[in-house]
């Protein structure tokens, strides 16, 4: 390490993204473990209120990942945050348009999709919109 590298402060944007990546993968590992455990419990005779509690248990690691995401968004570089927020705005708009479109199609008796579809559409649209938005700042 050179002297100038030693003198440089740690970049908070890079540190925030590294911390989020660690928390994200730990959260995903915890999510998979909780889903497997809760599925096993639900398929093996769990009854009553505990069935609902166990079915909702995977939300805990998801909430942890979400909280980490919010923290990362608050700590990252302002341009990166702007890019993500613009991409999320586009994703929200795309999802709303698709939801309205499919709502009309339901009137024509098309099957009602799972609520998971909304989540998938938001994430895919966000992922697709991010490079599109960041392009204008290059």
């Amino acid at each position, binding site marked *: 390490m050179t002297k100038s590298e030693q003198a440089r402060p740690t970049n908070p*944007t890079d540190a925030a993204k590294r911390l989020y990546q660690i928390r994200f993968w730990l959260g995903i590992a915890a999510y998979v473990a909780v889903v497997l455990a809760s599925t096993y419990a639900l398929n093996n005779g769990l009854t009553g209120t505990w069935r609902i509690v166990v079915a909702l248990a995977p939300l805990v690691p998801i909430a942890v990942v979400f909280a980490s995401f919010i923290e990362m968004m608050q700590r990252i570089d302002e341009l990166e945050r702007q890019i993500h927020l*613009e991409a999320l705005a586009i994703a929200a708009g795309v999802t709303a348009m698709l939801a309205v479109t499919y709502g009309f199609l339901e009137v024509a008796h098309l099957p009602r999709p799972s609520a998971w579809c909304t989540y998938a559409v938001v994430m895919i649209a966000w992922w697709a919109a991010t490079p599109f938005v960041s392009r204008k700042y290059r």
Partner: protein
Amino acid sequence: MVGGDPVRIAEIPVVKNRIRVLRAERDWSQAEVADRLGIARQTVNALEAGKYAPSLPLAFKISKLFEKPVEDIFDSASVEE
């Protein structure tokens, strides 16, 4: 969207600045400036290219880093009225 710019999402306020010149005078890389300001290298690139107008706090940090008044770094005449 065949060729040319894609659909315009929003107008980017262009603010010309002297960051590239000031950085070259100090023989700093974009990555070094980014680390000193605590921002991403891509943001330094966008600032230098005039593609991104920084927030007021970031503009003051840039001013402090280069030890120049904000108005000596950013060209107020380049902002459309």
